[in-house]
């Protein structure tokens, strides 16, 4: 019997598929890259990850063209059927454009967006994000502890949550704001991109679709981390390749995909 398997969907312009797949494999999942021209391959997968990059060169709007791509049809159907879908950075933008997060409107009629940063510039900074909802609200991250802090790299030009005021109120009230920016100790800080509600991630009502702007897969190993642990590991391959905080994010995703019931 095969293990549970995750499709990492690759669009023209995706650039984070390899490290995303590596993180999934490291936590014991089976996974494969599936290109946008192969939507027929997606039916057999148990879960889906939309990785980061610049799908279709961010033409029209970041994530907009990909959200309407034929390969998204089976992803949307799977999400509606309760399968787990994770979008990271450009993948998060796609999920917003597809209307899957916050998921308060019809499919492909977005009610929110990850819009251009307030700075007007592409930013690449190391950040921490904190779970901002009860763990029960995010079954896509099974077993994650309350207020969990995850290190990641924010690397985007369009990561600012934007929505009309009533929609922002709904996002906050109904627990769609899954992650907020924080410091390493979990104290909430201002989003580097000017994101409304300090939001770093959104989850849908059912909790099976999660969009997160910063990249946990880019802080999955100690050599990628940005503190003294990385410096201490210099010259020691084993220490440098030891799991870092970002891998915990994928461990919880793996528990969800395996349908492990949190203790």
């Amino acid at each position, binding site marked *: 019997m095969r293990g549970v398997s995750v499709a990492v969907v690759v669009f023209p312009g995706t650039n984070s598929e390899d490290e995303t797949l590596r993180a999934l494999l490291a936590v014991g999942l089976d996974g494969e890259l599936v290109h946008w021209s192969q939507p027929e391959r997606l039916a057999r997968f148990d879960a889906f990850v939309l990785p980061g990059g610049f799908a279709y060169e961010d033409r*029209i*709007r970041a994530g907009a*063209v990909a959200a309407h791509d034929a390969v998204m049809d089976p992803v949307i159907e799977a999400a509606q059927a309760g399968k787990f879908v994770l979008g990271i950075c450009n993948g998060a933008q796609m999920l917003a454009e597809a209307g899957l997060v916050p998921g308060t409107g019809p499919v492909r*009629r977005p009610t*929110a967006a990850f*819009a251009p940063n307030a700075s007007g510039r592409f930013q690449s900074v190391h950040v921490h994000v904190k779970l901002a909802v009860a763990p029960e609200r995010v079954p896509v991250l099974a077993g994650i502890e309350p207020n969990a802090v995850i290190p990641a790299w924010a690397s985007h030009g369009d990561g600012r949550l934007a929505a009309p005021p009533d929609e922002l109120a709904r996002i906050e009230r109904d627990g769609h704001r899954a992650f907020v920016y924080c410091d390493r100790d979990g104290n909430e800080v201002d989003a580097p991109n000017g994101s409304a509600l300090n939001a770093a991630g959104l989850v849908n009502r059912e909790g099976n679709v999660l969009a997160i702007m910063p990249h946990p897969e880019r802080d999955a190993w100690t050599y990628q981390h940005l503190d003294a642990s990385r410096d201490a590991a210099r010259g020691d391959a084993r220490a440098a390749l030891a799991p870092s905080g970002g891998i915990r994010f994928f461990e919880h995703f793996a528990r969800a995909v395996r349908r492990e019931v949190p203790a």
Partner: protein
Amino acid sequence: MTAATATRTFAVTLAIPDNEAFTALETLSRLGIGVARVVRADIWQLEVDGAADDLAKTVASIEAIHNPNKHRLAERPSDRPASGEVWIAPRDEAPATAVAGRTIPGVRAIRRRTAWRLLDDDGRDVAPTELDRAIETFLCNPAFQVAITT
């Protein structure tokens, strides 16, 4: 007494094939919108004090707006979209005062829009209902953008 303020509008189009417009055409076709050709332009609206006589020449010299090797630049007679055209703009727009770090003499505010025009097989504007459908389903994300039509 302050000088009169006016808005000058410039459209920049690609003289080379416009991949973004082609991608929009592909997506709109997939959405079932009857369009044969998509024309896109960057719209630069400059709020100026007084006549700013050399403005067109200055704008043409700013490569972040207009690269003569690949762009065509034209000043528009109106600060509103042409018939059959839609402009997509940020909803909560803070006008810029510089382009690529360069201020423009006499310009106090700079706004940028994307203009879209959808044409049918005969080169005519598609029906307004089709343009509306294109706006609602793809060209504009109302969460942070507004669509401006005539």
